[in-house]
């Protein structure tokens, strides 16, 4: 029941020598080698709110447990971005095609992952976003 995540970073010309970094993580329960055994699956939403909306609701029971979050902005207009926030702390902007993969601590129930289609307008069209969570804890996401 394994979940693996591989990142590959490549560039032929950002430095004097080519950059090629590749790392595979097997997603396990916190502090163990036991595979994560639950997932939301891959979900898709279309965003048009310029203010923060809860994408993933934190559950305090998730604190000290492992959760990995994948989010991608599937827009094709390079100017369109989504702002990703955890508990009012902005992490960064996902521009069209950008993705992120992070561990999520859920240190408390305020640690929601929120998202805003910050520069959306009626003329830009919705911003499609896909996401998935891989996690442990049977009660996780029951308040989503």
């Amino acid at each position, binding site marked *: 029941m394994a979940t693996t995540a591989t990142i590959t970073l490549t560039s032929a010309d950002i430095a004097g020598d080519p950059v090629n970094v590749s790392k595979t993580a097997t997603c396990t329960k916190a502090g163990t080698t036991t595979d994560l055994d639950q997932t939301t699956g*891959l979900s898709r939403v279309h965003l048009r709110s310029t203010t923060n909306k809860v994408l993933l609701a934190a559950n305090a029971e998730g604190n000290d447990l492992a959760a990995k979050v994948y989010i991608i902005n599937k827009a094709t207009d390079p100017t369109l971005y989504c702002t990703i926030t955890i508990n009012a*702390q902005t992490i960064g902007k996902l521009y069209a095609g950008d*993705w992120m*993969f992070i*561990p999520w*601590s859920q240190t408390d129930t305020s640690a929601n992952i929120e998202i805003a289609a910050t520069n959306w307008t009626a003329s830009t069209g919705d911003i499609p976003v896909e996401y998935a969570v891989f996690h442990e804890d049977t009660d996780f996401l029951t308040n989503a």
Partner: protein
Amino acid sequence: MATTNATISLSSDIADNTLTVANTSALYTAGTTTGLNTMTSVTKVLESTNNVDLITTGSVSTTHAYVYINNPSTDHTEYFHIHIGNNVGSGTYDDGTLPTEEIGRLYGGDWMWFPWDVDDDITIKPSVSTPMTVEYQVFS
């Protein structure tokens, strides 16, 4: 400008049907199709459980960057708390009053990748005071 790509391949057989995701993003300056041109690669060994700066806003000259952080340890019980906000040294953190938020815990063998708006520092807190190595790259 340079051409830099970040690819993720996810595979999971948790559910009855295997989930497979593969996506590549080209790294551009904010809102453009102009490639990034700056990269920083660092390996650090941390030897205390203090919450300290890992990547400061002053180290990046733009307001849009991408961050890769890797815990190369093979010990799955040891981890880093990865925060965004001001470091608090040996003080209490994440008490609800400080301008800092724990993103997540990076256990041995884990990596993370995310866009960074360079508004606040990225800080780190090892789970143990024995030497722990962290690797990171910043593209901007």
